[in-house]
């Protein structure tokens, strides 16, 4: 078996193993309800971390606005689910919600990618942040209602929609979407994570993926080798946005009311996901999943520290970054322990 194939299977194995373990713990009553509540969030943060690593690690472009794609995925799917709540049975409706969330996020990824990917480095990063914030702000000022006459939009208020008596407000500005069905569960989260991993890992081992990584490593040489730089950049960015959209669908079908607030979709959340990606290893897809799981759980594990937990978390983060990345410490580590590396760029891709 090829090394890459083996590597991929290990990743799926870890995810499935963790799933089985958690199910065992849950069924034998070893999991508190608080911990159970964290399971679905872990899966959607792992999914968006995989998506962001495709953008940052494989495509090599820093995005700090990926939660914007999560946001449109969450809203479009929750909108669909709420409208069709009484007309389509749960199973097919949730599947359709996923398709809609993913397609809408992909469309946003494509449209935003056109201007964004013309920029370079930190300029590109700040524009992704800007788009993420714009999506969040516009959605928070957006009102949509449905009545027998059709769909109504407004940017002012719910009453401005002019709904008939049979109508209902679906997106209520800053109050978002309330009362949409909550269909997400841990099993579905794991399935979505496995599919995301399958897509990204397969992509990396294809001619398209190699073209994307070639552009990352040297776009001038890639062009000279006949690689269409714009096309493959767009491809990677759109797929990354689509996967972020899938995490948004999991998100919006896990809570009772989805709001376009900073707490859920702000740049600070995008940055949090970026921390997962960097600590898990830039370009290391499996690392992203592991880092997202550990770092999402860590503050929860540190609950006994009460108000000091986020402080400790930040210190851990700083220390880990310095230990893992400082050129001097790496050299010292190599001298002392030989070649041990934790969470750095994978040496053999």
């Amino acid at each position, binding site marked *: 078996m090829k090394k890459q194939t083996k590597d991929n299977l290990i990743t799926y194995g870890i995810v499935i193993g963790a799933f089985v373990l958690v199910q065992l713990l849950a069924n034998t009553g070893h999991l508190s309800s608080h911990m159970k509540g964290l399971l679905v969030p872990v899966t959607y943060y792992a999914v968006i971390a995989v998506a962001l690593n495709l953008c*940052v690690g494989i495509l090599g472009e*820093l995005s700090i606005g990926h939660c914007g794609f999560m946001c449109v995925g969450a809203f479009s799917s929750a909108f669909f689910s709420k409208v069709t709540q009484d007309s389509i049975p749960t199973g097919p409706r949730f599947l359709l919600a996923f398709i809609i969330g993913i397609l809408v996020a992909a469309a946003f990824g494509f449209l935003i990618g056109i*201007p964004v990917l*013309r*920029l*370079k480095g*930190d*300029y590109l990063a*700040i*524009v992704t*942040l*800007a*788009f993420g*914030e*714009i999506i969040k*702000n*516009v959605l*928070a*000022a957006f009102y949509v209602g449905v009545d027998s006459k059709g769909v109504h939009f407004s*940017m002012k208020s719910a009453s401005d929609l002019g709904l008939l008596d049979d109508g209902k407000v679906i997106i209520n500005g*800053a109050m978002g979407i309330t009362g949409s069905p909550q269909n997400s569960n841990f099993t579905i989260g794991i399935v979505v994570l496995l599919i995301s991993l399958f897509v990204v890992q397969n992509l990396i081992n294809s001619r398209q993926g190699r073209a994307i990584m070639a552009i990352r490593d040297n776009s*001038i040489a890639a062009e000279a080798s006949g690689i269409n730089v714009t096309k493959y950049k767009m491809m990677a960015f759109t797929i990354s946005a689509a996967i972020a959209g899938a995490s948004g669908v999991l998100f919006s079908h896990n809570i009772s009311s989805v709001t376009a607030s900073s707490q859920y979709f702000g*740049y*600070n959340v995008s*940055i949090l996901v*970026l*921390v997962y990606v*960097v*600590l898990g290893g*830039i370009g290391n897809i499996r690392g992203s999943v592991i880092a997202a799981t550990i770092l999402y759980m860590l503050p929860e594990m540190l609950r006994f520290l009460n*108000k*000091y937990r*986020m*402080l400790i*978390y*930040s*210190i851990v*983060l*700083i220390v880990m*970054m*310095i230990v*893992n*990345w*400082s*050129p*001097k*410490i790496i050299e010292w580590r190599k001298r002392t322990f030989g070649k041990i590396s934790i969470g*750095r*760029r994978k040496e053999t891709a």
Partner: protein
Amino acid sequence: MSFLNYLISGLSLGSIYAIIALGYTMVYGIAKMLNFAHGDFIMVGCYIIFCISSRFSNNPLIGIVIAIVFCTILGVTTELVAYRPLRGAASPLAVLITAIGVSYFLENLALIIFGADTKSFTSVVSWEGLSLAGGKLKIQGVTLVTIIVGLLILIALETFIGKTKQGQAMLAVAEDKGAAALMGINVNRTIALTFAIGSSLAAVAGALLCSAYPALSPYTGAMPGIKAFVAAVLGGIGSIRGAVIGGLLLGIVEILSKTYISSQLSEAIVFGILIVVLLVRPTGILGKKIQEKV
């Protein structure tokens, strides 16, 4: 007349953004890193002034001076402890994430010491301001002071960089660290000096920000910090004048769109302007064009 009023308050907010953006842009230009914690230095400065004025002294100047000194030390220490070890790391993301860690650290430390509740900040400017055109045009003291301070800082910085040896050393380090070191410039000290200046400016910006918008919480610095970063990019990151132009533009756009369009969408408009400018000028208004040599 009311338009003029809004324009002036936009100019004032813009001056605050400009002062913060100067810190961002200098650090970026010289250390080639985004100091995400820069916004939190503002918050630290505000809390220092708040403590001094509520416990020890009524003279706001004393508070400001102590805040400047404290933030300068904080900036230099942060650079030494958290950023310097990562200079020359394999990925520029390493130091970015560390800066995010520092930002979390400062916010949570403030949360533990001062609590999450919003403190009401007493303005450091007690002057009432001007009333022109028979009371139709009222300009608050803090507004005027902010604009003047912003202008003074710009002049001082331009002079410092253009006329002094340390300023020239900064330009050299910004251009090429290796070559600067070969020319006998102490790169570490120059970068530390840059952090010192940037952080002291953050303290000044904090005093002005909280005087104009007197609500102080551990997250006070975060959003102005991001917007100042946007301003720095807008103006062309690394450029002193660019930071000022970007800051002023952003402040004016924000106030005017809040007034005339929608306060909910004002942030979206600010970010929209950034996108439009970068599409026309991919390295900002005064940014240098970078072309890779083949």
